[in-house]
């Protein structure tokens, strides 16, 4: 009979590389809807930039914050696009892995641990966000909407921002038994207001005071402001820039820990 030590030795490789095997599966699955990812990645920025750059910016000839309207709005549009992909990926794909396609249960029947399943899910999403953000960045660069050389930092900021919204939603979705309209409700009552009141098209100083708190708790506002700092050197106190980062990292990290816990609970019960 194979000894316990032999068995442990056989499980060594998955113990070390399980997170990557789990990523690999996700990337391979993406092949099935790659055309959607590519088309939307290219299509989104072009539609936005044509509408806003050519259309709306004519109404604001003086620009905002000392820069042309397109330069002001471009980082925020990039962030809102990637963060909305993040919100999407934190909902149906997670519940589906438990409820409809049960892929997470299938993987957990192998030496892969729940933590590695989550890690693989996150790594594949980081790649997906980077791809979409990278294409968006190139598009706004081509439209001449990124004055500074540090503008490329919008890509990692977008990934962080997307994680800040995706991981808390993933933690929530992993506990759901069924979608009885919760996702639609989140979309309408959380995601949509966030996009409208996060200083995307105008500074939050234009929002009535009693609504400003929405921006302060919105990962999108923090990501957009960071994007503006690196894209055109928006002036703000350094503590505020640091606060943006702290908020995003906190959302992402707490969400990731809760997601891991939810996966362990659901897969081992």
């Amino acid at each position, binding site marked *: 009979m194979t000894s*316990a030590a032999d*068995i442990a030795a056989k499980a060594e490789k998955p113990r070390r590389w399980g997170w990557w095997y789990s990523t690999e599966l996700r990337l391979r699955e993406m092949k099935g809807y790659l055309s959607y990812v590519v088309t939307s990645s290219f299509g989104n920025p072009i539609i936005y930039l044509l509408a806003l750059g050519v259309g709306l910016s004519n109404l604001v000839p003086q620009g905002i914050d000392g820069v042309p309207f397109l330069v002001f709005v471009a980082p925020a549009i990039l962030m809102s696009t990637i963060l909305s992909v993040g919100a999407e990926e934190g909902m149906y794909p997670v519940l589906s892995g438990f409820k409809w396609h049960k892929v997470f249960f299938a993987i957990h029947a192998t030496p892969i*641990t729940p933590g590695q399943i989550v890690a693989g899910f996150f790594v594949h999403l980081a790649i997906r966000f980077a791809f979409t953000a990278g294409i968006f960045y190139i598009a706004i660069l081509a439209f001449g909407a990124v004055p500074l050389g540090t503008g490329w930092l919008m890509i990692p900021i977008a990934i962080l921002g997307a994680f800040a919204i995706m991981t808390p939603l993933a933690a929530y979705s992993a506990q759901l038994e069924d979608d009885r309209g919760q996702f639609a409700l989140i979309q309408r009552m959380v995601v949509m207001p966030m996009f409208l009141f996060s200083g995307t098209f105008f500074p939050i100083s234009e929002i009535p005071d009693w609504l400003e708190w929405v921006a302060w708790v919105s990962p999108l506002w923090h990501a957009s402001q960071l994007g503006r700092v690196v894209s055109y050197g928006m002036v703000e106190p350094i503590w505020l820039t640091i606060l943006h980062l702290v908020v995003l990292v906190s959302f992402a990290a707490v969400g990731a820990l809760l997601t891991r816990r939810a996966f362990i609970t659901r897969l081992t019960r």
Partner: protein
Amino acid sequence: MSEPVIRAVNITKKYDDFVAVNGISFEVARGESFGLLGPNGAGKSTTMKMIAAVSTRTSGDLTVLGLDPNTDGPAIRSQLGVVPQEDNLDQELRVRENLTTYGRFFGMSHAEVGKRADELLEFAQLSDRAKAKVEPLSGGMKRRLTIARSLMNDPQMLLLDEPTTGLDPQARHILWDRLFRLKENGTTLVLTTHYMDEAEQLSDRIIVVDKGEIMAEGSPAHLIRTYSTREVLEVRYGSDKNASVAKKIADVGERQEILPDRILIYSADGERDLAEITSRGHHPTTSLVRRSSLEDVFLRLTGRSLVE
């Protein structure tokens, strides 16, 4: 005798107040084919999940391949093949990709998983579907693909949870044939089923489980000998008359079960008892003499039938 591959002592699984598995004990030897027979909700699947090192037991001692599933889950799972009750094939992937990606989870190289996948597609009679999508496959084909997937890591033990539920008779027989080959090659099989014919076909030894507890244990033949008679005579008088006729023939056979649609008479010689009943003037509308089955054992032990 070598170390058993599974040793369960008094294992329990509770979900809040609900006790799914209530202190059951059993052992499974290497190369043995072991069945858990019981109705839906008996605790079979929960027991399987504990053996498969995915569900944490509430109490009791359990070793699988000499290891504790609560602490050595990944190591145990590296040696198991698991066929879950509901197919959880990856619909985003093609047939062959379902096997290759799964093999990777065990640390197999890309070259290894490719070779193994082709062998197993052959075994599962799915070679011509290698590049097909999963969704349009028939139930039997999906099941065979799930079994092929569970064999990617050349497991020491195969766990099958209700392997043929929902399949038509022909598909079931193809599947049984494949599983029988594995058994012949020495793979340890552990299966749950609520079909008595499946338990009889595939298991050397069975535990009968109901409401989270073991009701009986032994080989199918042993259980039938112990808990039933050699033959069963089934007679029908029409649903409104069965009960009244039963009273008049209560002394026939060793024991009787009166079901809504028929009377079961447990007997060493069914034909003789049928002659006895008719000689008393109780001519049934239909009658049937058959061998006793595990269904009868279950009925005897629990007063209920397996499939409701």
